[in-house]
């Protein structure tokens, strides 16, 4: 998943800052269709499994809090707690082929709630 956006950072105390974030998000997915019942129903054909990589554009909103921590050798380090909610808009996908005698078309979309903890390092 790749994101690109902006943040508004607000100091809450001398050390604690919170931020509201948002922007573009793109989610990479691998979608797989396992054809079993559909392949043996009616006129039977060999079962198969088909996959496709899908890039789904979307957006994210989130929040972030951070406060300084002491890490040896890393000045201006901070602990960061982040939350992102990602909306990946729907993409139409078809799996299977004429040669495989089965084609399934569907629309796939995704919501993602992401909570992460990390360390920030600042650079001038």
């Amino acid at each position, binding site marked *: *998943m*790749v*994101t*690109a*956006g*902006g*943040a*508004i*950072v*607000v*100091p809450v105390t001398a050390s604690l800052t919170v*931020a509201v*974030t948002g922007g573009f998000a*793109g*989610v*990479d*997915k*691998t*979608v*797989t*269709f*396992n054809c*079993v*019942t*559909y392949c043996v*129903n*009616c*006129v039977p*054909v060999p079962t198969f499994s088909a996959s496709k990589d899908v*890039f789904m554009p979307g957006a994210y909103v989130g929040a972030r809090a951070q406060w300084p921590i002491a890490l040896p050798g890393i000045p201006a380090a901070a602990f*960061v707690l*982040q939350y992102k909610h990602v909306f990946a808009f*729907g993409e*139409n996908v078809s799996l*299977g082929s*004429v040669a495989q*005698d*089965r*084609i*399934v*078309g*569907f*629309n*796939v*979309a*995704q*919501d*993602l*709630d*992401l*909570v*992460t*903890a*990390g*360390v*920030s*390092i*600042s*650079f*001038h």
Partner: protein
Amino acid sequence: MRFIAQGDCHAGFTARRIIEAGAPAYEITSNSTVLGVVLLAVCVLPSSSFAQFNETGNFFVNEGLLDLIKADIAAGCREHRKFPHAYYSPGHHLVSDVYAYYAVSLNDYNLLKSEWEELPRAARGRDREMHSTNVRPTEPVETNEFPLPQDNGRTPVNIPPGNLATLILDVGGGGITQRFKLTGMQSGATGGPLSNGPTMSVPAHANGTPAAFGANTSWILGEWPRPMPTFSSPFGYAPEDKPASGFPSVLPTKAPPKPAAPTPRFTFNVEAGNYGFAGGKSTINGIPGGPGITPTGDDSFISATTSWSPPAAPSSCR
């Protein structure tokens, strides 16, 4: 405005002698006026610029400092300034602990002078002989008290850092809701044409909980409200609770008012991130909305969120 410079100088000229030598006060009339005059020829040299000992020990009038003093006078301030000490002069004389006082009126100056002269010798502190001829300091003493001439004596501080970048290394987890909606199905016999089957648009979803790891970078674009540059004090203020060491308490040594706490500022950032996921596949069993027994069959749709990677470059092979 009256100006008095006093301090220790080598070769038996003490601060008091300097005063008695007839160079205690000088009228500031313009930026180019010589103010330092001669405290001692070997110690303080007349100059067309003002009030700074450089590395060679010359006493210069620096126009930046002059501007600062004038600004202070205009603001009604009367302060003193301790010059950098322990500079080596070209005449092999060590100049040390030189103070400059200035007053807004002649009366103020006379008061300073009389108070000074009435002090016991030991109380003056700076009134001591120095015998440092040919004793050359290994390095000029660095001090932050004196404004450097190249920045006109005012060093801006608290300027917001430009292009401050932050790299955040993240690990965590997420909850994925995978949504699925059938749009069409085609089937046929082996080798034969495909025909559309009867389908319905039946929304379905499946959940997954992948682990996540990634990096996020952030760059500061600006702040609001915009910060006001502040400046370092051009003068060496004495501690607020006591006068400058060795000088009369009548001297205006009160420290400047403490600055107010900085106003909280919003920071506007741009950021970019790249995350990878492990596990957390979401599986939809059957074909919701499919024909016949497929909605409850053994077919499945598996969706896995992956990390983003640039598209592969087209092959150059022919």
